[in-house]
């Protein structure tokens, strides 16, 4: 288990500054949520910290090492990401076997067949799925494959970019429980972006509320029901979500 720290992260796209000095401390083995409206910069934090997006200022540390100082191989093996849309995050012409064996080939890890089977077993898919293509699987199964792809390099930290928002409700619960189980089994540190407060409530011990590229407030899980938010924006956002859920 390893902590993640983000210090003074700022990012601009042209004239628009999308992140303003974001600071986050995520403890080892914690599941940390990031919530906010669309465009508040939640996903950008993950994309910057994973170096998918470059050109930002500040530091992102995994343990004691900055992600910029890690070698590519080291970074890949400490940090992986699960994306929002399982329809877009799997290559339409790659079979599950290709998806899972590529990272093993890149990092010259032996024992590929066993590792691939183990990864599929971890996410609750039978080994026969190795020969399936994305269009032969349901959304939930695809997301499981995407999670298996993130697991196969044995990372310490997994970024979850709205991992369930493209799935329907019953599948959402399955995937969330799977992610919870994997965390307790493998001791991952999660940072999860979501705009669904119920998901955050289910998964995360703590979460940060973001607005216009700033962290407005960092709250505990209890703050959702216990109205522990101090800033007006966080209170408003939580109130709106709860009202919406009650209306359902």
């Amino acid at each position, binding site marked *: 288990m390893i902590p993640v720290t983000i210090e003074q992260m700022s990012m601009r796209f042209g004239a628009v500054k999308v992140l303003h000095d974001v600071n986050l401390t995520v403890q080892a083995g914690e599941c940390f949520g990031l919530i906010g409206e669309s465009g508040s910069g939640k996903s950008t934090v993950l994309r910057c910290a994973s170096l998918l997006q470059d050109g930002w200022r500040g530091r992102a540390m995994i343990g004691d090492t900055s992600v910029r100082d890690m070698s590519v191989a080291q970074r890949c093996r400490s940090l*992986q990401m699960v994306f929002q849309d399982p329809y877009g995050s799997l290559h339409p012409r790659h079979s599950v076997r290709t998806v899972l064996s590529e990272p093993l080939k*890149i990092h010259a890890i032996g024992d590929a067949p066993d590792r691939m089977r183990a990864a599929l077993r971890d996410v609750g898919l039978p080994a026969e799925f190795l020969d399936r293509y994305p269009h032969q699987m349901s959304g939930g199964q695809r997301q499981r494959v995407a999670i298996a792809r993130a697991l196969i390099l044995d990372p310490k930290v997994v970024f979850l970019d709205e991992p369930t928002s493209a799935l329907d409700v019953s599948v959402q619960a399955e995937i969330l429980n799977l992610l919870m189980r994997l965390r307790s089994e493998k001791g991952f540190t999660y940072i999860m972006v979501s705009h669904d407060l119920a998901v955050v409530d289910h998964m995360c011990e703590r979460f940060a509320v973001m607005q216009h590229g700033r962290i407005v407030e960092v709250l505990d899980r209890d703050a959702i029901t216990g109205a522990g938010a101090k800033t007006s924006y966080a209170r408003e956002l939580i109130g709106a979500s709860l009202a919406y859920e009650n209306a359902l």
Partner: protein
Amino acid sequence: MTMSDTSRATDARRAMPQSLIALRNICVFLARTPTSAFGLIVLGVLIFTAIFAPLIATHDPYVQDLQNTLAPPDAAHFFGTDELGRDIFSRLVHGSRITLTIISLVTVVVGPIGLFMGTVAGYFGGRVDTVLMRITDIFLSFPSLILSLAFVAALGPSLNNAIIAISLTAWPPIARLARAETMTFRKADYIAAARLQGASPARIIWKSIVPMCLPSVMIRLTLNMATVILTAAGLGFLGLGAQPPMPEWGAMIATGRRYMIDSWWLVTFPGLAILSVSLAFNLLGDGLRDALDPKQMMKR
């Protein structure tokens, strides 16, 4: 142990047919549409004729018979004879080899170059894109026949130089197409995932981007073949492609032109051959476009 053995055996059985099944599906699809079926048949006939040219030809295409010049079509000479008494049918049959050589060599050269330039420019973007695309623009800014004329004029007229010249003018549209395709999915999550797994740009381009570009590039190449045939025939007609006495179809029309009024068969048959082959490639390309449409692939 036994379990992994059996699963490995099924791997081998399944990995191989996947591409074969796709190929069969495409062929079945093409054969079902009348127009692309026509294209397939003409292409089949062309390849068959090229392979078995010496067996199909009734005469030697180079042997002259000055006693029997400009003879109209009859039982001995199906398509008549030309101004030197050579059998036009046999010359057409042997000419199919030249046509096929030109098409295949140009395609083999143009496909990889276009794909490389396009995917690299599209994936990296920025300065790389600007440099590669301006080079492409330079080639695109000339009419292709004029540019190939200039190349052949500089290199000297011969069949090989014609092939080089045509290749030089045929790759930019492919590069453009591959770049446009690449740009639509370079930001896709599966590319991001590949980057997070430490894949090098070369690996991402080869393994993730090229397979996505390939169908449209194949379609474009097939449609291009018609143009290639016409350009080759045009160069031959202008005397800059295949040199006499080679039985190249365009060159045959060029020499037959002088006798066209009295001996119509000299230009008609090579003309029909060029027409049907280029039409066939156009129809086949159209059919491929339908067959390789990703939405239709999903259904199968």
